[in-house]
Every structure is written in C-alpha cells, then in structure tokens.
C-alpha cells in the first residue's frame, strides 16, 4: 500500500493498467506511467498501441480489466476528482443542434461549474481559441478545425487541474497548432498538468517535459526528452575527397562510412578524434563535425525496429 503523501506526489500515477476488449483484444498489457504535477506529459506510439484506451480508462469512459493507481491523488475511477479534469476525446462528436456557446454551457453544467462562472469562462475561452464570432452558430455548420477548437475550449471550462487531450492538434492548421502549443505552455506556467496523446512527434518535442512510448499495450520507453535522447546521440563528420582507401579502417573502429560522411554513434569523442586522424592521414579535408541528437521520431522507429526483431510473446489469455 502506498502512503498518502506518496500518492499525492503525482498528478497521474498509473500502475499495472490492463485492458482486454471482449476476450481476445489485449489493448493494454500492464502499463505503468507517472506524471508529475505541473508537467506536460506526452504519450506516443503507433496506431492501435492503446493510447486512446489508456486515456479513456483514466477518464472512466472505458472500464479497465485491471488497474491500480491514482488520479489527482484519488484512486482511479473516483468520480469526484473528475470535476478537476478537462478532457478532449479523439474523434469527438458534439450534438449538431447546439451552438458553440450552448455546448460549452451544457458540458460545464454537467461538470458542476456554477452558472456565473460558466458565462464568464465561455466568453473568455471562445475568444482564446478564436471562435467568438461563431459562438451563436450551430455546431453542424462548423469545420473540423473549428470543432477541435471548440473541443479544447470545452475541456477548459472548469479551470481543470489536469487536462487530458487525445490528439489535440488533429485537424488544425499550422497556426492552430501553434496556438495549441502556446496554450499548453500557458497552462503549464499556471501550474496545471497536461497529459496528451499525439502522432505529431515534432510537436511533442517542442512542448513536453516527459514522454512515454507505448507499443503494443506496453510502455517501451519513458522519461524526460533528455533521458530518452541521451544514449542516442551520434557524431557526423563531413569531409571531401575519396575515402575508399580508408573504408576498412573506419569500419574496423566501429564507425560507418557514407558518401562524404562518417557516422560515429554514441558519446565517444575519442573515436571521433581517431576518425579525424584517419581522414587527415589520408589527406582528406574535414569540413565539419556535428553532434546529432536523435529526434523522437528516430527513437520511435528504433523502438519499433527492436520490437519486431524480438517479438513479444502475446498471451492469448491473461
């Protein structure tokens, strides 16, 4: 049993979350994820990895097969704590007969936000997401991006402590995406916690403090961006001239030779110098030496490659 003080350290603390749809679809197979308060946390993974399922379990939309842990310090599934969360589901469908302003009011009333605050927040948020002019237009006249903006406004109506966003930039144009990034950073500076799913890895890199990579229902990697990219750094030495003469020596030292570039993986500056020596000895001129950090995309691709190289045994029954 975890102590009370320990419980409250995390905004989200998921322990051994499992979900089997029907009897055979193992969507989540024991997920452990911790999100600190005031942090922007990104969850990434390929299609069907179970990201949406995990978020739905947090928001009590889907009933887990097994789950421990806490959300805002209360056991997962605690109804009262949902008053402190905002949620933007993936592929949401809002009732078309409502106007934008009516929708915000309706959802916030269900979230027990007092009427006076609903009025103020609706006006403020519609303005914040650039939808003020559309406030009194029926939702069935909205474009996809406008729906998404409204969805984000809706999630903020109760001034939530924790925001859970499933693909928040889905359907948004580049300006809209930048707006969302700014909004997330704003929320962070106001001390709020953000948990988001996204396919757009470059976006996660720009705003997330920490990320987890979910593959096939399991967390493959988790940590700060620095932690994840630490071991995956490489140096690229560009040169001019014909290096075929030294190819064997380069490869013998564990580096790889491409067209006018030698790649040294890892934090090995000794090896980098050895390469430069080799190039200089062969009378080739070194043009540049650049450390190169892997992007999240590289890491994801690498994780996926590792997974397919060593396939995880899929239990048919738990």
């Amino acid at each position: 049993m975890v102590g009370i003080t320990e419980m409250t350290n995390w905004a989200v603390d998921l322990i051994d979350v499992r979900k089997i749809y029907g009897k055979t679809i193992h969507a989540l197979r024991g997920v452990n994820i911790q999100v600190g308060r005031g942090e922007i946390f990104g969850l990434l993974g390929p299609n069907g990895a179970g990201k949406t399922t995990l978020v739905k379990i947090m928001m009590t939309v889907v009933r887990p097969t097994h789950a421990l842990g806490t959300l805002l310090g209360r056991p997962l599934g605690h109804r009262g704590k949902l008053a402190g969360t905002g949620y933007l589901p993936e592929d949401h469908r809002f009732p078309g007969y409502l106007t934008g302003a009516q929708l915000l009011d309706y959802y916030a009333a269900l979230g027990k936000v007092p009427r006076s605050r609903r009025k103020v927040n609706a006006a403020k948020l519609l303005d914040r997401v650039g939808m003020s002019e559309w406030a009194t237009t029926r939702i069935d006249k909205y474009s996809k991006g406008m729906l998404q903006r409204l969805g984000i406004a809706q999630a903020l109506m109760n001034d939530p402590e924790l925001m859970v966003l499933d693909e928040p930039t889905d359907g948004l144009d580049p300006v809209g995406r930048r707006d969302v990034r700014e909004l997330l950073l704003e929320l962070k500076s106001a001390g709020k916690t953000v948990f988001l799913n996204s396919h757009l890895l470059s976006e996660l890199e720009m705003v997330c403090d920490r990320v987890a990579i979910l593959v096939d229902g399991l967390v493959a990697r988790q940590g700060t961006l620095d932690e994840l990219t630490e071991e995956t750094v490489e140096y690229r030495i560009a040169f001019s001239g014909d290096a075929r003469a030294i190819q064997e020596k380069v490869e013998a030292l564990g580096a790889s030779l491409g067209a006018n570039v030698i790649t040294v993986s890892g934090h090995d500056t000794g090896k980098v110098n050895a390469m430069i020596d080799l190039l200089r000895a062969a009378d080739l001129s070194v043009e540049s030496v650049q450390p190169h950090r892997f992007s999240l995309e590289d890491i994801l691709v690498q994780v996926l490659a590792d997974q397919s190289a060593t396939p995880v045994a899929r239990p048919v029954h738990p």
Partner: protein
Amino acid sequence: MQFWALIVDSFRESVDRKIFWVLVGLTLLITLVMLSVGFAGEEVTLFFGMWSTETDRFNPLSDIGRANLVGFVVYLLASTMMGWIGVTLMIIATAGAFPAFSERGALDVVLAKPINRARLFLYKYFATMVFVVLQGTLFFVLTFLVMWLRWGVWAPGYLLSIVFLVLLFSYLYCVSVLVAVKTQSAVAAILLTLFAWVLFALIHQAPSVFETFPDLKKRRTVYVAVRVASWIPPKTGDFPYLAARWSQAGTSIDALPYFDMDTATELERTQIERARQVEEQELAKNQFYSIGSSLLFEIVVVLLAMWTFARKDY
C-alpha cells in the same frame, strides 16, 4: 443542475426535430376544427356558424350533453390523435435520442463528468420525456380551453390526461431505450417498440378469448397461465379509459335515458344491453392496478437498460 442541463439539452434536441413541429401542427389543426364547431343550448353550428342545426344530445347545459361532448373529445380526438398517431410519432421522434447520446465520441465527454453512469442514464431517460410533456401539455391545454371558452364545458379533470399520456408513452419508451442501448440503432428501437405495443395489446386481449369460448376455461393451466401473463405487460390500452374517467366524459350508460324501455324496439334493446356490458367491464377496471402493474414493468425494463448502459465500454 446536471438534471436541468440534460432537460435543456433534450428540449433543444426536441425542437430540432421535424416531427415535433408536425405534431404541433396537428394539434393546432385539431384546435381549429374544434373552434369551428359551436354548441349553444340545443343549437349546433359548424364552420364558425355558417351552418346550424338543433339537437338535444350535445347541449352543454345538460349533464348528458356535456358528458357527450367531453366523451367525443376524449375518445375520438385525444385517444386517436394523441394516443395513437401522436404516440407513434413520438416514439419515432425520440428513438434516436439514446443512440445519438451514447454514440462513441459523443458520450466520452459526458462520461468524464463527475456523475455516475446509473444516475446519468436515469436523468437522460426522464429528460427525453420533455418532448412528450410539451406535446401533451399543448394538446390538452388547447383542447381544454376550447371546450371551456367556446363550448362552455368546464372539465378540469381532463387536464390529467397529460399525465396519462406521458405514462402511456413511458411504458413504450422504456422498451425503445432498452433496444437502443443494446443495439445502438434508432430503427431497431422504433420497429421493436411498435411490435411490443401490438404484442401488449394482444396479450391484454387474450383472456377475452375464454369469455367468447367458455369451454376453453376447462383447460385450467392454460387459462391461469394466460390470465397471469396478461398482468405482466403494461396496460397501454387503458389510456382512453383513464382519461375519460377523470374528465367525467359521457359513457354508454349515460345514453340510456334516451331510450324508452317500454317502446324500444328489439334492436334498441340489444344495443342497450351491449352498452351496459361494456360499461360494466370498464368500471370493473382498477386504475391503480392498471398504472401500478404498468409502472412495475417499466421499472424492470429501465433497470435492465440502465445496467446495460453502465457496463458498456464507449
């Protein structure tokens, strides 16, 4: 606050449907037709007074005349227009409410609110009836006003028909919702509900077969089984009876004084006898049994639907 939010939402959903306005139009048309007919003493005028005739059967000043007038409105207009056509249209109009509400993507946000699923379900269930409450109120208040202000017939009990109409609708709506949460399909909900309606009526009528063929009563187990089975389904056929009873509408027995038993022909005598039988059957009905057993059925079906709703993944 949460219940109110769902009611407001259901109201907006209702007025967004065409059928809602079709029903409003129907009610206005009926009101207009009623307005065009006038009863003053023994004089009856049609088409806003363009044509007139005399009869003592619809004299609003006599007890029998007013009972006949109210009976005409209850049996012919209210139970046919609202009880049959109206309820059918309302079933069609409301069948989509639950499938749309619990669609994947639509329900997600709502489920993530601080409200438990059972309560959410019940709130939504009752909120959807806003549609019927509005239609029923409009129809019965307007027709009540015409009777009162144009015909001079004061029948406040007639307004209770609003409650009976909502009850009748709810007996059928629970079936619609159960089908909807099981199948997510409005069409399935409509078809199965209309089918259930016919089935309820048939089961309800089944015991009368034994009255027609008394020999069948000798098969004791079958007879008892049929009688017991006829208690279970909601008493959807009782709407005109309940409405008439509370509006003090004319019933068959009221017509008796029109016949002079001594000079009545053979045909008239059999008519009177039939009227008396029907009347006795009606009076033998117990409204508490009718409403109570129907509500019991509704509660069971609603609990079943609620359970299904609460245990699903969305």
